[in-house]
Structure formats: structure tokens, C-alpha cells
């Protein structure tokens, strides 16, 4: 039986690796997840006859296993199928948290197990890995739940400032240090005391929540990505504890790729990961921000549409406002009308537009925008100077020229889309408020900028009408 298990786990690991490889190219991405899915199904099925279980079969456990898979799978399936595309980031957060929780649960069972009567008691080094996996998994669990709450905009999590207090870093460090210390005590003393282990888990869970609570919604993508890497690491550690090769390999791959992705995302925001975790926008802006001069010049959607209809090149810059208004379908409908009139339409995506890298791409793909009309910042930034119109839809900080010029600005140094280089700029915006970073945007006051106020979907509908009226 051992050979069967190991063979299937080997196949699963290969399918995961090839699947991820395929997922890293747009044309093969769709098949990649299917390959990985087959791997998962195979590994799950064969694990019912895992020798570690079949050595002492307890029938009730099989019943529990099937019930748990049915309930967990059904809830997750329902959630994943029903949720709106805009809510995808928080769904990733919550499923990631579940993985972390599962890793912590494995560790809990291993730690509580009374090996007194068995001959093969685990070595201290194995218990240390179990404890480390438990700590990381629990942190990922509670942190991801907080991230979910924040992105879902649940009332309790809404006010980031509420969770900030002086000496917070020190309090968090004390909680973390006590969790580590207690974990080491449990591992070294081979203690199976329920009380000690419960306190350890409570401390770990508290640390995860405390770490995520003061972080603002704008930084959540980086945090979710970090927790994703954490879960991978926790799974790998528990894999070493159980001697499970599929878990070890999958966990390490996720841990390292997740770490790299986190670094890439932080870099795109021109911030370090520690800066995201241990400070916040509000605390950054030290000096007086440069005064913004000029006035906001409003424009009606039909007039904006006419300007675009007679342009030869339009670059569209979507932001979180488009996601909130679910405007991607209307926007693409409008673009198709423009393309029929021989206007060149391109989409420019800032790496951190929306709430996650690639968030905008997913929404545009959902609306049916071909991916070869969608460009990364580096690919398209030079082109703004040749564009007749740059249409900004609910984006703010990622097009704020202060990032280039204003050293006192909290976003100074962040690479931005050079929207201000376009001949005309149109900005669709719900109101006059400031962006996530809480700062004014000089772009909106520029001479060649017109503000189109309103919900992005309604504005797009008005623009479509405007183009159609031209005949």
C-alpha cells in the first residue's frame, strides 16, 4: 500500500508543478488548474487507504472524514460559484485562511496525541516542526479572517485607525515571543497538556489578528499574498511531521512562490514588506503636502463620449471604482463602439490597481476584453503622450503625479501611469473624495483634465448613448 500512496503522491506533485507552469501563461492557464485539480482528486482518494490510517482502522473516523469533506467542500463550492467577481480577493483570503487552520489542526492532533504507550514517540525536532507549523498556520488563519472582514467591508473592521494604539508593535512582539516560547516548551518537554497547548494556540491566533487589524484595505493584497506563503510553509512543516511527501513539495513550492509574489507586489507599490506590515499611510506623510492649485472642471458623459469618438487613440485606466460599480461590461460595450469608429483603444493596468495585482485584468476578462488589448504599466507608459484621450475610471493614487514630484507625499516614489502626458484626460469619479492614500490628486485639477462625476456604470451608459447619438 505504501508504494501505491507514494506513486500517487509523486504523480500529484508532478501534476501540481506542471499545472502551475501552465497557469503562468494566458493561453494555457485554463488547463493548468484542471491538471492540478486532477492531482488533488487523486491524492485525496488514495489517502483514504493511507497506511498511517489503515494500521489501526477506526470506522467512526472514516464517517467523520466523509462528512467533513462533504460539508467543507459544499460550503466552499457554493461560495466560490456564487460570489461576484469583485469579491474574489476576499474569497482567496478566506480559503487561504482555511488551509492555515487545517495545518494548525493537524499540528494540534499531533501534539495532543499521547505517545506514552507507543514505542515510536516523535523526536523533539519533529515536535518543533509541528509547533512551528502550528504557529504559522494559526497566524495565517486568524490574519486571513481579518483580511476577509476588511475586504468584505464588514462594519467591525472598517475603521483601521480604531485598531492602532501606541506601543502596538511592542505588544505584538510580546504576544509573538510568548507564543514562540510556549511552543518551544511544549515541543521540548513533549507535553500533551491540553491547557498549555490551548494557550499556545490562542496566543498564535491573537498575533495573526493583531498583525492584520491595523493594516488598511489598500495594503491587503500584499498581506493576503504573505499569508498565502505562510500557509504554504505551514503545510510543508506539517508534511515533514507526517512524513507526507505531497504536502512537503506542494507546501514548499507555495511558500517560495508566494514569498516572491509578495515581494513583487510590495515593490510595485514602492514599499518594503516590513513597511506594509509595521506602519501605515497615515503615519508616513510627515511634511506638509504641496498645495494643489486650479479647479475641478466637470464634464457631462455625452460630451466626454464625443471627445473620445473623434479621437484616434484612447487609453483606458481602470481602478477600484470600476470594480465597485461593476462597470466593466458597460465600459467594454462603449469601447467596442469606439473600435467600430476606428479609434485605437488600449487598456493600461497599474500593478496595484484595484485591490490585487491582476484584479483589473480579471474583471476586464470577465467582460470579454481580449487580453491582447490590455497592457502592463511598463509596456504602455510611453504611449500616453501619443494618446488623444486617457480615460481614468475610478483610479486615483496610481495616476497621481505627486508620486513623481512631491517628496513629502506618502506615495512619493511609487511608479505611476503617466496619464497626465495624454492630450486630454477624463476622470470618472463618484465624488470629490480622496483616494486610499488620503491625499489630493493634482491631476484632477490640471488644465487638460475633465471630471465626469457619477457611478462608473451609469456614466458608461451615458457615454454609449452619446456615441450612438452621433450615428
Amino acid at each position, binding site marked *: 500500500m505504501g508504494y501505491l500512496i507514494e506513486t500517487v503522491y509523486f504523480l500529484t506533485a508532478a501534476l*501540481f*508543478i506542471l499545472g*502551475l507552469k501552465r*497557469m*503562468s501563461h494566458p*493561453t494555457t*492557464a*485554463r488547463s*493548468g*488548474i*484542471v491538471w492540478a485539480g486532477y492531482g*488533488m482528486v487523486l491524492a*485525496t482518494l488514495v489517502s483514504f487507504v*493511507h497506511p*498511517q*490510517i489503515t494500521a489501526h482502522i*477506526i470506522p467512526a473516523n472514516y464517517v*467523520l*472524514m466523509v462528512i*467533513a*469533506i462533504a460539508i*467543507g*467542500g459544499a460550503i*466552499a463550492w457554493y*461560495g*466560490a460559484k456564487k460570489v461576484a*467577481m469583485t469579491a*474574489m480577493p476576499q*474569497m482567496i483570503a478566506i480559503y*487561504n485562511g*482555511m*488551509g492555515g487552520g*487545517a495545518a494548525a489542526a*493537524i499540528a494540534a*492532533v499531533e501534539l495532543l496525541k499521547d505517545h506514552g504507550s507507543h514505542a515510536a514517540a516523535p523526536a523533539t525536532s519533529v515536535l518543533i516542526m509541528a509547533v512551528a507549523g502550528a504557529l504559522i498556520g494559526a497566524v495565517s488563519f486568524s490574519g486571513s479572517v481579518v483580511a476577509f472582514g476588511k475586504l468584505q467591508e464588514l462594519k467591525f473592521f472598517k475603521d483601521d485607525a480604531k485598531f492602532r494604539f501606541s506601543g502596538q508593535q511592542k505588544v505584538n512582539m510580546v504576544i509573538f515571543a510568548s507564543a514562540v516560547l510556549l511552543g518551544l516548551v511544549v515541543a521540548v518537554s513533549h507535553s500533551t497538556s*491540553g491547557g498549555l497547548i490551548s494557550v499556545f494556540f490562542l496566543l498564535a491566533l491573537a498575533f495573526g489578528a493583531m498583525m492584520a487589524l491595523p493594516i488598511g484595505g489598500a495594503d491587503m493584497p500584499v498581506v*493576503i*499574498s504573505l499569508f*498565502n506563503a505562510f500557509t504554504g510553509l505551514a503545510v510543508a512543516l*506539517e*508534511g*515533514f511531521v*507526517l512524513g507526507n511527501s*505531497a504536502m512537503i513539495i*506542494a507546501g514548499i513550492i507555495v511558500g*517560495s512562490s*508566494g514569498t*516572491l*509574489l509578495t515581494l513583487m507586489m510590495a515593490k510595485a507599490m514602492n514599499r518594503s514588506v516590513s513597511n506594509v506590515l509595521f506602519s501605515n499611510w497615515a503615519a508616513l506623510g510627515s511634511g506638509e503636502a504641496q498645495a494643489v492649485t486650479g479647479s475641478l472642471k466637470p464634464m457631462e458623459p455625452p460630451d466626454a463620449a464625443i471627445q473620445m469618438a473623434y479621437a484616434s487613440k484612447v487609453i483606458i485606466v481602470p481602478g477600484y471604482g470600476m470594480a465597485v460599480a461593476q462597470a466593466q461590461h458597460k465600459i467594454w460595450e462603449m469601447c467596442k463602439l469606439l473600435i467600430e469608429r476606428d479609434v485605437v483603444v488600449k487598456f493600461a493596468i497599474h*500593478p496595484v490597481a484595484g485591490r*490585487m*495585482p*491582476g*484584479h483589473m*485584468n*480579471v474583471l476586464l476578462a470577465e467582460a470579454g476584453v481580449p*487580453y*491582447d*488589448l*490590455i497592457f502592463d504599466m511598463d509596456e504602455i507608459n510611453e504611449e500616453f503622450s501619443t494618446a488623444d484621450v486617457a480615460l481614468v475610471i475610478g483610479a486615483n493614487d496610481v495616476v497621481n503625479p505627486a508620486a513623481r514630484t512631491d517628496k513629502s507625499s506618502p506615495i512619493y516614489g511609487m511608479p505611476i501611469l503617466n496619464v497626465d502626458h495624454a492630450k486630454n484626460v477624463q476622470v470618472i469619479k463618484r465624488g470629490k473624495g480622496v483616494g486610499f492614500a488620503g491625499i489630493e490628486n493634482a491631476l484632477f485639477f490640471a488644465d487638460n483634465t475633465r471630471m465626469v462625476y457619477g457611478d462608473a456604470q451609469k456614466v458608461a451608459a451615458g457615454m454609449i448613448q452619446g456615441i450612438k447619438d452621433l450615428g
Partner: protein
Amino acid sequence: MEAVVAFFSPIYILMLAGILGYEIIGKVPVILHTPLMSGTNFVHGIVLVGAMVALGQAVTPLEQAIGFLGVLLGAGNAVGGYFVTERMLEMFKSSKGQEK
């Protein structure tokens, strides 16, 4: 000698799998970052397998309860991760034909 090999093989796995994960994501266009994060999120759903083993070995009611929770969460991670990723990737189309 065998003991030495047994000691070192997990370290080799650690190194090679780590490099592999790094390489896989290193050359990915930004447009696939979210789907790929979701994809890796699915891959660590393999934790389900470990949770099944933990529950299978559970003896006391407490161990069974925690094991049950672990399998439930693991299954949620795997199933949810799969369908979220699939839904995102389903939408990638090129402008050259292949309409739904």
C-alpha cells in the same frame, strides 16, 4: 551511509522545490498574478490529505473533533481554491476568435 542519505534527502527536496516555486512565478505577466495566487492557494489545499491522516489516527473525542475541523477546513481550501481559480481563468480569451 543510509542514515546520512535519509537526513539529507529532505534538505535536497527543500532546496529544489523552493527554487522551482521561485522560478515558476518569476516569469509571469502581471495579468496572471491574481489567478496564480489563487492557483497556489489551491495547491496548498493538499493540506486536506494531512488532515485526513490526522483524523484517521485520532483516538480521543478531542482529537476527533480537531481532526474533523481540520478536514473540513482543508476540504474548503481545496474545493474553494479550485473553483475560484477556475472561474478566473475561464475568462481569459484572446481577441482572435474563440468566443464562448
